[in-house]
């Protein structure tokens, strides 16, 4: 690698970093506005026209806020933790391709790299929780470790199924394999599991158990203030954005679109996924820890393995894609029906118990 290459990569990383920063600012504002509209509110309206400068104002406020450190905290780890959470988020973005050529580093095993790097965020959470010397922080980091480890499995297995179907772990190739039919049509079950696991991985609202303001006042971030807290926030949204992009690349056909292949399609698809994240956030309450774990281990993991098994057998017996798609849709419908049936039965049982 020559010096020029290093400089070029450096410039690329700088641009990407600024892109992430900008998109996180936009994401936070968009989340507040969209969530407001979903709840028949207006969202931020006062700072700038239609509140468009709200996140900028928030960022400035965080920058000038006093940087506090609790007594008895582990100084080095306390200061390192925000970075440990943010850097993996950035590293994911480094391997995400925006088009065939527009990618910071086109790794042959890009998917494996992304999965491996995204797991690192657990370390940051646990470090923050431990170093804060606060029981809420510790509790939050313990919850987050449990949640992230549990949902890492369905995430990895569904992503692996995509890799298996595409016969490649390179994201560019995966996108190119989806040219006639995006994978969401061939493996909807996988997409659903990916969506749930991605929400859980990024700790978004139905799965925001590690933070759980109403129970443990903010989890691992309780003791952080000012820009260190801001970095945590940034990392969270960077990870959510990365997950949306990953979902768009793996299941929605990436940059390939009806008229021409363009990064615009990728942005549109990722935006749609982000809006879906917001929509999911609006009406749903937080799960209980045991419900979360039960869903991960009893439902998500078995189903993701079933999905993997389906695709593996399809490849082994050389099923055509339409057959695989049909079977996958069937399984999805069966799963949803089973869930609804089980719920009805449970409701009936509860009614019988409390009716008398």
């Amino acid at each position, binding site marked *: 690698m020559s010096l020029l290459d290093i400089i070029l990569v450096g410039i690329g990383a700088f641009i990407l970093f600024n892109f992430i920063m900008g998109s996180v600012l936009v994401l936070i504002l968009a989340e507040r506005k969209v969530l407001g509209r979903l709840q*028949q*509110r207006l969202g931020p309206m006062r700072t700038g026209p239609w509140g468009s400068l709200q996140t900028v104002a928030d960022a400035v406020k965080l920058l000038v806020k006093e940087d506090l450190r609790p007594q008895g905290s582990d100084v080095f780890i306390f200061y390192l933790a925000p970075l440990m959470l943010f850097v993996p988020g950035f590293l994911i973005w480094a391997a995400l391709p925006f088009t065939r050529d527009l990618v910071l580093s086109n790794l042959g095993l890009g998917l494996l790299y992304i999965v491996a790097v995204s797991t690192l965020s657990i370390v940051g959470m646990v470090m923050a929780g431990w170093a804060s010397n606060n029981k809420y922080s510790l509790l939050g980091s313990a919850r987050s470790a449990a949640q992230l480890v549990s949902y890492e499995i369905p995430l990895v297995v569904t992503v692996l199924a995509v890799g298996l179907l595409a016969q490649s772990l390179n994201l560019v190739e995966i996108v190119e394999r989806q040219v006639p039919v995006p994978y969401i049509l061939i493996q909807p079950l996988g997409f659903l599991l990916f969506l749930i696991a991605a929400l859980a991985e990024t700790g978004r609202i139905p799965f925001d158990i590690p933070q759980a303001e109403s129970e443990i006042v903010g989890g691992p971030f309780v003791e952080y203030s000012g820009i260190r807290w801001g970095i945590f926030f940034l990392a969270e949204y960077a990870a959510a954005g990365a997950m949306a992009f990953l979902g768009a690349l793996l299941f929605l056909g990436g940059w390939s679109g009806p008229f021409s292949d363009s990064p615009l399609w990728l942005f549109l698809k990722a935006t749609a996924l982000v809006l879906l994240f917001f929509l999911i956030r609006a009406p749903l309450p937080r799960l209980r820890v045991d419900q979360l774990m039960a869903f991960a281990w009893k439902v998500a993991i078995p189903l993701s393995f079933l999905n993997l098994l389906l695709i593996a057998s399809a490849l082994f017996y050389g099923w055509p894609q339409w057959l695989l798609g049909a079977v996958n849709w069937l399984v999805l419908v069966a799963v949803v029906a089973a869930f609804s049936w089980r719920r009805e039965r449970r*409701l009936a049982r509860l009614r019988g118990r409390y009716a008398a």
Partner: protein
Amino acid sequence: MIGTFKGLVTNLFLAFKKPVTVQYPWEHAPLAPRYMGFPVLTWDGEVGEPFCTGCLVCARVCPTDCITVTMKDNPKAATGESHRRKIVEDFHLNTANCIVCGLCVEYCNFDAIIMSDLHEEGATTRGDLVWDLARLLEEGKKQQMKGWWSPPAAKKSERRATAPPRAAAPTAEEAAPSGVAAVAAPQESLDPRVVEARRKAAELRAKKAAERGEVVAAPVLETPSVPQAPGVGASAEEGVDPRVVEARRKAAELRAKKAAERAAQQGKEGKTEERE
């Protein structure tokens, strides 16, 4: 899982409804008719003095002791201009203490104090929160100009003497002097500007009410037609603003639609219950 999906779809449609937020300092939610704000003193335009005689009834009945009144001999009574032998000398209302209960208005024998629509009264010092006689009268005049209140024909004591027993007739009109109480107001005494302002206010109220789709629209609208002040009569009886008519029609339609929707909703709910 289907239930969750249903919830998501419902919420998605909610996003396209008009937000309920009112951008407060720039926008104001409409006040309810007969909204009770801080009490203010009324002005007798006939004589050119306050109605208040400084009798202290309000000060005694006030649960928070926020009213202070002093009384003096009325100089105008000596010249025969006024029928009031005593008149208020000074009146202080501490709005920091006032709980806007309306007892002073209820107990006042002279229609001298009314509930205004003032509710955004802040001050930077505690002293400024105490309103003196001048301010109370000024605010009261503004209320009268707005048509929020107008002097009734008969004195309160007379009304009370001739009124049927409480159980027989609701005393709402009597207790809360509003446009409704102005039915037989002495016409000649009224400043034409007041008449005009009151007519405008009534129209505005009717329009607002119609916009809100309230049933109030009809009765409120008919009130201003009663005083028959010169120059108003023509427009009051027949010439209701076509916009008002239109608004009223729309309101009625909206009401019918809402009722139908509600009925449909109830039917639906009934069905869901059956199914589950």
